[in-house]
């Protein structure tokens, strides 16, 4: 019997349903089955997962497509090896009864956007829809200012804010998924060091395969082991919050729709990467001369893992 | 003593005054003292017998633990030369002297002029702009004296103002003080360790004894001579000094 290989996944955030597949894989022993002894490390919004990865503190991190492209731009020795979310759950939400029919109707309203949002999706919104920096107010991980202002809009996740707003007494908030409006990065990308990709492909492959199986099981099997582990790691987590997020992920097909339906969870394609990159270039958020092939590799995905 | 009639102000009366500090030291015990308006009284006594404490109580800076001080607050303006120079380290000699005038709202030009006069009187013409730390010990004390003199007080309390001065400067300032007193007739209480000085200056020498501080002798300095060189070299003076010295010795022995 082979020794288990140690692997660390840094999610850079607290435990919640958005990372449910990883927790499910850990809770149900999928990682061990693939010969891995995995530890999931939590973080906070100010941490920089990429640096941890480069420094060799951890083996895998969860990042956005933007991170991967930035790494390619700067020549950082890391790359995306799988995309667990085919659709970024990023939304813009507004109060009901403000006459929002589509995203365009939100232009001109006070918008609570975080600092990182200003460097990622906001340039896209500005370029494509005419949102203006003048209306932006800082988002501080609290929806209170937004709740207090009927006319305001704010950034959010489809898996989270609608429920939070519901709890705050705002029924049926209006939410537009940016994915539907052409902002189409992958999300929950698994990132790994180039070094591991080149020299320990089996190690990376095992991790990806186990994680995919974890996600498969989390969405279509019994999610309770994963949820239990999430709650263990995050005692503040409430059942209804988890439930809402999981339902949203399931119904919105965030993990297993689009390319993933055919290629399996974690799927990535050159076309999608190119498309997203072009979007960012035309929004002015990235320069046009990045060799995006450095940002990701398709070598570990699209193997229909978990599909019958 | 008979009531003098020159005064319009009230007599300062200390009645059964005791002072025990919070650490338990009794500095003054059951002391009685009446200061007639316009009189010049010297306090003589061993070190630590409570002279400074009495002055502070007269000025109302500390309250007696027992007994009552009356008449000093109503008297009007009080001038005080503390035993230490008590100058503001951040102010020049002139600024320090001007302080009481500034506080009283005297116009800057006038205050300056009066302060400069006072400075000259104590022999410090050239030192208007010097800071306290740039002055010698005696010079600092003279600045402090000048400060008290500018105020034209109704009661002037002097706590060993001349101790740090050479005899010649001291004689000069003795005479200046006497002249000022004769001109203005304020009530003066003068603490000194010099028997000669006390006799030379005052109408009355109160001798205090220590532990606890109390009045042990009260000598009237009666002479027909005008105060000045004549008095200082007179037989009267020598005899009065001898009496005061004996009183002091008695006080210390008790």
């Amino acid at each position, binding site marked *: 019997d082979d020794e288990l290989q140690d692997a660390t996944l840094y999610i850079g955030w607290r*435990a919640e349903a958005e990372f449910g597949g990883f927790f499910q894989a850990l809770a149900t022993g999928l990682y061990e089955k693939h010969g891995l002894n995995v530890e999931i*490390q939590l*973080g906070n919004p*100010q941490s920089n997962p990429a*640096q941890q990865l480069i420094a060799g503190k951890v083996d895998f991190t969860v990042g956005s497509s933007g991170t991967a492209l930035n790494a390619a731009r700067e020549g950082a020795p890391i790359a995306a090896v799988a995309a667990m979310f085919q659709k970024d759950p990023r939304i813009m939400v507004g109060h009901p009864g403000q006459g929002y029919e589509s995203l365009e109707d939100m232009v001109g309203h006070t918008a609570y956007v975080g600092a990182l949002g200003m460097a990622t999706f906001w340039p896209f919104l500005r370029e494509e829809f005419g949102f203006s920096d003048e209306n932006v107010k800082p988002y501080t991980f609290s929806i*209170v200012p937004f709740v207090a202002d009927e006319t305001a809009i704010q950034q959010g996740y489809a898996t989270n804010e609608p429920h939070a707003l519901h709890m705050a007494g705002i029924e049926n908030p209006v939410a537009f998924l940016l994915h539907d409006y052409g902002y189409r990065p992958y999300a929950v990308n698994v990132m790994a060091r180039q070094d591991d990709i080149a020299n320990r492909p089996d190690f990376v492959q095992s991790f990806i395969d186990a994680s995919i199986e974890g996600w498969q099981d989390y969405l279509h099997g019994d999610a309770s082991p994963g949820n239990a582990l999430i709650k263990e790691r*995050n*005692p*503040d987590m409430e059942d209804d919050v988890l439930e809402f997020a999981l339902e949203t992920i399931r119904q919105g097909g965030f993990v297993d729709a689009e390319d993933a339906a055919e290629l399996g969870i974690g799927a990535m394609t050159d076309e999608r990467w190119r498309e997203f990159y072009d979007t960012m270039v035309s929004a002015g958020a990235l320069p046009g001369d990045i060799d995006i092939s450095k940002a990701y590799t398709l070598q570990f995905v699209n193997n229909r893992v978990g599909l019958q | 003593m008979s009531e003098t009639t020159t005064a319009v102000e009230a007599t300062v009366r200390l009645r059964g005054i005791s002072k025990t500090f919070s650490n338990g030291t009794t500095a003054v015990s059951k002391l009685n003292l009446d200061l007639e308006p316009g009189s010049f009284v010297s306090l003589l006594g061993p070190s630590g017998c409570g002279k400074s404490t009495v002055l502070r109580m007269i000025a109302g800076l*500390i309250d007696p633990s027992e007994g009552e001080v009356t008449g000093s607050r109503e008297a009007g303006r009080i001038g005080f030369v503390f035993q230490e120079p008590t100058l503001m380290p951040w102010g020049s000699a002139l600024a320090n002297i001007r302080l009481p005038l500034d506080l009283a709202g005297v116009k800057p030009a006038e205050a300056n002029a009066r302060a400069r006069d006072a400075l000259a009187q104590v022999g410090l013409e050239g030192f208007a702009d010097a800071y306290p730390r740039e002055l010698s010990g005696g010079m600092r004390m003279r600045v402090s004296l000048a400060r008290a003199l500018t105020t034209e007080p109704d009661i002037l309390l002097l706590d060993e103002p001349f101790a740090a001065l050479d005899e010649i400067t001291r004689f000069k300032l003795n005479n200046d003080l006497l002249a000022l007193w004769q001109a203005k007739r304020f009530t003066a209480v003068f603490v000194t360790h010099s028997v000669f000085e006390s006799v030379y200056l005052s109408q009355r020498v109160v001798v205090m004894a220590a532990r606890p501080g109390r009045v042990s002798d009260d000598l009237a300095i009666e002479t027909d001579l005008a105060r000045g060189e004549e008095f200082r070299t007179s037989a009267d003076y020598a005899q009065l000094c001898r009496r005061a010295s004996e009183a002091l010795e008695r006080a210390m022995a008790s």
Partner: protein
Amino acid sequence: MNKTSPLRRFGLPIGLGILTLIVWEGCVQALNVSPFLLPGPVAIYHALVDDWGLLSEALLVTLQITGLAFVCAVLGGGLIAVLFSLSRSVETTLFPYAVIMQVTPVVAIAPLLIIWIDNVRLALLACAWLVAFFPILSNTTVGLNSSDHNLRDMFRLYGATTRQTLFRLRMPSAMPYFLTGVRISGGLSLTGAVVAEFVAGTSGQGSGLAYRILEASYQLQTPRMFAALLLISLTGVLIFLATSFISQRILGRWHESAMEREK
């Protein structure tokens, strides 16, 4: 500070506190303010009681870092000040670097600190220390230079060694300054611990009050957030009172700022 009767010392601020709470609750009730925006004291109290287990655990974590950071700030700030006081050249050379340490935003270097320092606790401590040490250093440096020049001369004359002058003259002279620095740093250690946790801490178990605040804010449990804030405030006030008390004890017999005046 002079002695004030305990009744006034504690009665007045507590009285004002109670008054504020009543007015606050009244306003919240009268204006029907949503508890998500601004909960009233009653709601906060309930949150405090209900979530006491969670909050007290978090408080303990924060207190540990605060306490350690405070001790390190007092020792570190004090020792560096002493080092600076030994030589004008050392002071001139190194003080700008102390300033750089003070102004370097912990928020910015926290992610790097976590990489450089393997232990998260240690990284948090380093962050909190960075926030808290400077007032002690700065105050103590001025204090050590404020000793009376005549006394300094006297020490020189009696052949005092640098060490003796330091311990017997300069340190006592620096006390009022040092203790003021300590009172400032007490609060800053707490702030530092909270900020550090905010930027460098990990979420989940064993996290301190900052995380609870973030979490509560994120989950719209505003009363719980205020309960956590309340704990932080109370801790700060307690630290302040404790340091003030110590300061009073040390300076009470001789320094103008602490002495009671004879009346």
